[in-house]
């Protein structure tokens, strides 16, 4: 059953991102001048991603906000560009709120979520942004402040078939809704966010929110919106067959039926117990044909477990606006990370980048990097080692496949890394430098660049 062809995982690259990768000379100049690693963002990709979500809204005749979950990337260029679209922004810290206000978002387009200290709450109340309240305690802090609040709920229950969800650290328990409503004079909406890719759990939660709105209306509190959070996902790979073959072979490797494919035989959560495969594959489903706007469309078409009508129609029937908080899905194809090859010896390739600079391993996303310069010889399987003096600093524990043997000085590009991967976990450990970020834009048929914080979108006028 062993299969010795190289196990490629070709990333999905749309034409715009591909045309950046084709600029071999520009990419080398940037890495020479600004160092490795280097983050590149494509603000121009955002408008189409927002529009793709909006198209789903139109199909279901729904209205509501598309809030970008800022935590997915800290780039100013991306945020300033988003401010020129119709999207709003979801901020989860004082710094993010300041950043959003500074990028041009007016308070009516901002929602504050997540854990909040008094400073964050203070600025949120002062500027009048919407506050997604996470706990009864937080609600108490905001009483009589005049804040516009969303109640974030959790712990929804289902009848008939019990749909189990992992316990969440966020949200007011559904069975304490009455207590929460007793503390509110006015609420702007109901919210939930579940960290799962499973639509049945989200269907239970959304129907729970509808019940909560009904309760609000019964009490004479007019509520017109539900915020369903994010988690729409991205499809990272071009070819589903490659992903299927890779995951099958990984199981075979763990069972000892083929040569190891990972550093120290790492099983990504799978283990061999007496010849039976146990554990769970701890990887993001990198090939996800239904993701982003498609996932939202599917969720809205899912029948509610109790009322049996599609969720989208239930929202519409009750005149409820739908708010969403996509993070990585809005950043699809909007960025890449460059790393320089320091040395290449056999199956070991050393890079001037560390695992925190492109946290693929931390997020469990497997895909091959692109060798800048489109050199094609024999496909080569190599391990990518990082620049920290640490045993564990591997860019990925998977052996990646490159189209040619890398040489010192070559650049590798990790594509589609704007969502969570490029700066979420970057550190200055060992005095290694943190990647600079540049924004590239298409002007007069060529790519121009500037440092991230120098980027200001100018549409329809001279720049």
């Amino acid at each position: 059953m062993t299969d010795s062809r190289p196990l490629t995982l070709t990333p999905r690259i749309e034409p715009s991102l591909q045309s950046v990768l084709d600029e071999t000379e520009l990419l080398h100049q940037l890495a020479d001048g600004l160092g490795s690693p280097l983050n590149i963002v494509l603000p121009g990709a955002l408008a189409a991603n927002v529009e793709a979500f909006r198209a789903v809204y139109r199909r279901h005749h729904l209205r509501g906000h598309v809030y970008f979950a800022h935590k997915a990337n800290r780039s100013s260029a991306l945020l300033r560009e988003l401010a020129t679209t119709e999207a709003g922004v979801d901020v989860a810290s004082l710094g993010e709120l300041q950043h959003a206000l500074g990028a041009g978002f007016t308070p009516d387009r901002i929602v504050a979520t997540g854990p909040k200290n008094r400073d964050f709450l203070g600025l949120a109340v002062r500027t009048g942004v919407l506050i997604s309240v996470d706990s009864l305690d937080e609600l108490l802090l905001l009483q009589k402040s005049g804040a516009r609040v969303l109640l974030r709920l959790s712990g929804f229950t289902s009848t008939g078939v019990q749909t189990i969800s992992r316990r969440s650290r966020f949200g007011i328990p559904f069975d304490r809704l009455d207590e929460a409503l007793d503390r509110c004079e006015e609420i702007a909406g109901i919210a939930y966010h579940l960290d799962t890719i499973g639509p049945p759990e989200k269907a239970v939660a959304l129907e729970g929110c509808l019940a909560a709105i009904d309760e609000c209306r019964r009490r004479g509190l007019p509520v017109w919106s539900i915020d369903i959070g994010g988690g729409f996902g991205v499809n990272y790979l071009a070819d589903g067959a490659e992903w299927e073959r890779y995951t099958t072979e990984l199981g075979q490797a763990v069972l000892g039926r083929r040569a190891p494919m990972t550093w120290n035989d790492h099983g990504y959560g799978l283990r061999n117990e007496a010849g039976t495969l146990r554990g769970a594959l701890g990887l993001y489903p990198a090939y996800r044909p239904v993701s982003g706007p498609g996932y939202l469309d599917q969720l809205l078409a899912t029948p509610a477990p109790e009322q049996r009508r599609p969720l989208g129609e239930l929202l519409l029937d009750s005149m409820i606006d739908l708010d969403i908080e996509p993070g990585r899905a809005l950043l699809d194809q909007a960025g890449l990370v460059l790393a320089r090859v320091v040395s290449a010896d056999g199956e070991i390739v050393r890079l001037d980048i560390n695992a925190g600079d492109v946290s693929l391993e931390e997020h469990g996303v497997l895909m091959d990097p692109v060798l800048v310069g489109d050199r094609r010889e024999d496909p080569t399987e190599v391990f990518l080692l990082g620049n920290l003096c640490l045993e564990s600093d591997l860019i990925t524990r998977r052996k990646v496949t490159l189209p040619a043997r890398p040489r010192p000085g070559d650049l590798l590009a990790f594509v589609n890394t704007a969502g969570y991967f490029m700066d979420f976990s970057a550190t200055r450990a060992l005095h290694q430098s943190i990647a600079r970020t540049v924004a590239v834009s298409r002007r007069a048929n060529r790519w121009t660049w500037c440092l991230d914080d120098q980027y200001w979108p100018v549409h329809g006028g001279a720049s």
Partner: protein
Amino acid sequence: MRFDDMTEAIGNTPLVRIDADVHGLVNIDLYAKMELLNPFGSLKDRAALQMIRPLLTGARERGDTVVELSSGNTAKALAMIAGMYGLPFKSVTNRMKVPEVKDLLLLLGAEIDELPGQAECLDPTDTEDPLSRMHRTLSAHGSGYVHTDQYFNERNVEAHLHGTGPEIVKDLDGRAPDYFIACVGTAGSSTGVARALRQHDADVRVIGLVAAKSDFIPGIRTIDEVHEVGLFDPDVYDTIETISSDDAIDGLLTLVRRCGTPAGPTGGGAFQGAVRHLRALDATLTTRKTAVFIVCDRVESYLSYLRERRPALFGRPPRRFDVRSLTADEVDTAPAIDVEEASRWPGLIVDLRNPHAFQALHLDGSINIVDELFAEMLHGGLPFGRRQPVLLVCPVGEKSARYAALLTRMGHPAVKSLAGGIIAWRDAGGRLVRD
């Protein structure tokens, strides 16, 4: 036949020859082991009884709940047996994809727990799957559960080693078949039968059938999933072949339409996989051979599975009055009025939204007929007189326009749609009431 209870009717199923005109094999006699004739409907009745029997006394004393990770036939059989002994049954699953099976289990009084999906933001330190965690909870002493553990329980294999396998040999006049073809689910039946047959004749060829990785055939594991099954041992099978859901449905249709056998997809897959494998050998044979496959369960539980994959099988004639038959032009020119005019509407107002939303807030004086129900009513003709003016209301005026167009086509002269729907009404400050 007089029995004390239904479990005594488990087993001793017939071995039925498949007509050569149907399978087209010249040198091979093909037999089906009709496990669908077990009292609770499937092959799993045998394993369920075998696994639960030694646990019953203790479970009854302690008042334990019987629990199994099953999304289908094992759950069905266990629920019925547990019920006979007054014990509750719970099915834990992340694979219950067939709605009829779900409903049937609820009808039998089973509790169903669905496991959570994978996290969108991955926590790589959490390498334990929900199944393993569940497994540990269930196995803990004093948990209140007895776990039959079908994927690892050797008694699952024994049910077939001592039952299904020897029955086949007996019905073939004491000889083992030359070929045995089985779909692999828990691997219990294929392993047990193969072991029994080989005790008679070490040369029996055993062909295991699994589903392709991205495919879904209820009751059959995929090529990857079989490795998660404790009872699965690749050495049991001379070859392992893949079948698709299309193959399984083709086989099911042959069995249902030509063989008087109301088989489910697993039986269909086994038949199709058997014929495909044997056809290649048939031409090379010089002596007569015998082959046996298993028809695991019945077709009735899989109607929605079949409808989803082969809608053409359920083709019905088009309805007389149907919104789907409207042209874009008819919908565009449907009679509509704006909010201002609607506020002075003298006639009947029909709100097409769901009852829940209607009860929460609606236009004063309107009545609620949810659109699905309204569609059903219109198939039969006009549900109100032609002199009765009717205003249709939906969320944004899109559905109401379609029904107004349909009613117009049906000859109603005074039907209107509320342009922009109840949302436009609300936005214009129109009054909404709740009773």
